[in-house]
């Protein structure tokens, strides 16, 4: 597990059934591109988050394939439909095999 990786997610606490809501996510990660060299001139190996997914009650909202050109501390904003009350699940996949998860519950008015 890469050091100091911390996810942040912003989801409204409630919505009307069938509404579309905006979700913002950010995870602290260096996103080492594999293009940089260290002071000895050696390539610093690539180490990035290569995939991000958001699901709601087991159904997919968005699935992002990520390349090294995504900035340090990757940020994503997108919209999700909320058919019923439930739980969003956010998953980030690291090159090193680590998986970081966060969940957020939402109620329906």
């Amino acid at each position: 597990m890469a050091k100091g990786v911390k996810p942040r997610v912003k989801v409204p606490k409630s919505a009307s059934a069938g509404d579309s809501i905006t979700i913002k996510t950010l995870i602290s990660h260096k996103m080492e591109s594999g293009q940089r060299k260290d002071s000895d001139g050696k390539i610093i190996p690539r180490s990035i988050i290569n995939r991000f997914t958001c699901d709601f009650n087991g159904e997919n909202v968005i699935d992002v394939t990520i390349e090294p050109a995504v900035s340090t501390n990757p940020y994503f904003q997108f919209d999700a439909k909320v058919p019923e009350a439930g739980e969003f699940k956010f998953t980030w996949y690291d090159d090193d095999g680590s998986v970081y998860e966060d969940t957020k519950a939402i109620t329906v008015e």
Partner: protein
Amino acid sequence: MNLTRRNAMALGAAAAATIVALPAGAATFEEAVMSVTGGKEAAEGGDLVLTAPEIAENGNTVPVAIDAPGAVAVTFLAIGNPNPAVATFKFGPLAGSREASTRIRLATTQDVVAVAEMEDGSFQTAKQTVKVTIGGCGG
């Protein structure tokens, strides 16, 4: 060789020429788009809207957004980067819109490209030039 200032400059010029002569890491617009569409044509000027700043204060963190009505997936490309692929957003059954935004790295001033795969299997594309400025004294 006696390394005088003049020689050093000539060497520098030769080195620069070599770099230009090599096929640069950067892809052409068409090549980049085709790499996503698998060789299919992508239409410009559709409903796909790509939003990116005209001038980026720092190439490390450039905000980009797409609005791609009717798309099943959208790929961002930075065709002046050593590796043009940036990210692909696949919209799932619970996607609330076909809009998404992220922050990307641009190595230099270049065209940022979005390629949208539509529900009917066709492709649309849009591009925007982003000027990447070099900071003041670099500090």
